């Protein structure tokens, strides 16, 4: 693989949020393909459960689906941004629809990345790298 792979921190702790267990498994597999250690990947089946996990464990990245019962991905994103302790936590939003309104709403809510299903490991890697590149630039300029 090229230099892009080397940028990915293999030890980052990632929370995967999706109401479909199949999709959670797929994202987990893709992350393992990218070299992330399996024990660093945790899962939640909706926004409420994700928030409960975020209260107890420090994560480096949240990958969340948009459409979920109880608490949707956009509401999870807003909840994260409203909570001082984790308000800067990077969030990658996953959606089944390439919907302009969704993208705008997510951007306004402070999303860090947006990926449309289905996506490959390479696309996921690109999106994650882009998130951390931008964060590094903004931290350097701060």
């Amino acid at each position, binding site marked *: 693989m090229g230099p892009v792979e080397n940028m990915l921190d293999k030890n980052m702790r990632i929370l995967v949020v999706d109401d479909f267990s*199949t999709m959670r498994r*797929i994202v987990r*597999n*893709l992350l393992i393909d990218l070299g992330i250690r399996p024990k660093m990947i945790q899962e939640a089946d909706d926004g409420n459960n994700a928030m409960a996990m975020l209260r107890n464990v420090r994560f480096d990245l949240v990958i969340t689906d948009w459409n979920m019962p109880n608490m949707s991905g956009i509401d999870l994103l807003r909840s994260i941004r409203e909570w001082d302790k984790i308000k800067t936590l990077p969030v990658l939003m996953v959606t089944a629809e390439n919907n302009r309104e969704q993208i705008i709403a997510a951007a306004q809510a402070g999303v860090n990345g947006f990926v449309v299903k289905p996506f490959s490991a390479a696309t996921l890697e690109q999106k994650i790298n882009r998130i951390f590149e931008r964060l590094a630039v903004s931290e350097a300029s701060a």
Partner: protein
Amino acid sequence: MSTPYRLGLDDDLPQALRELLDSTDGPAFERALDAIVHQRERDVFRTLGQLARDLHETLRRFSAEFARDGVAYVAADARQELEAALEMSAQAANRSLDFAERMRPDADALVQHALAELERTADDDPALPLARRALEFGLATRTALADMVLAQSWQDLSGRRIHKAAAFIGNVESALLELVRLTGELVGEEAHGTAPAVSSQADADRLLAEFGF
């Protein structure tokens, strides 16, 4: 005394209505008019009720066709069929993922062993072609397994559409039963208490029976 106002179309009106229009008894006119309007409303709501019943029967026949074709579900309705299809597709996807997760370590190990073998094998060693072939196979298998995992994304995408279709059918059924309840009330048939939430075919049949459909 001025000449009473007469509608231009009254020649087409029934005799009773024509006499009513000519009547000077205001309260009698109001009562008769109310009765006519009420009768019209009853006719409209009966028709709506019939339409609702026909639609519901169509949904029930749709379910029965599935059952007759051998798909053995206790309560075979369209919504349950969709949920069952969703569950089956999830099981199939999970079996594929099980397989991929089980084989991935073997493929990785084969690649590692082949690489090690290539490093320590001399150029004229007869085992060299086999080591090269094992490496190619290991890498190809790893790629194929990754593709297979990715292909299961379609279960998620199709599942979401099935969810939407099932929710739509549920909404249609609820709206239909609300329509039946309203038409029942408006034609003077009393509901037994407030309408309960309807979630199954049995509930639907019971509620329809309450209104004589």
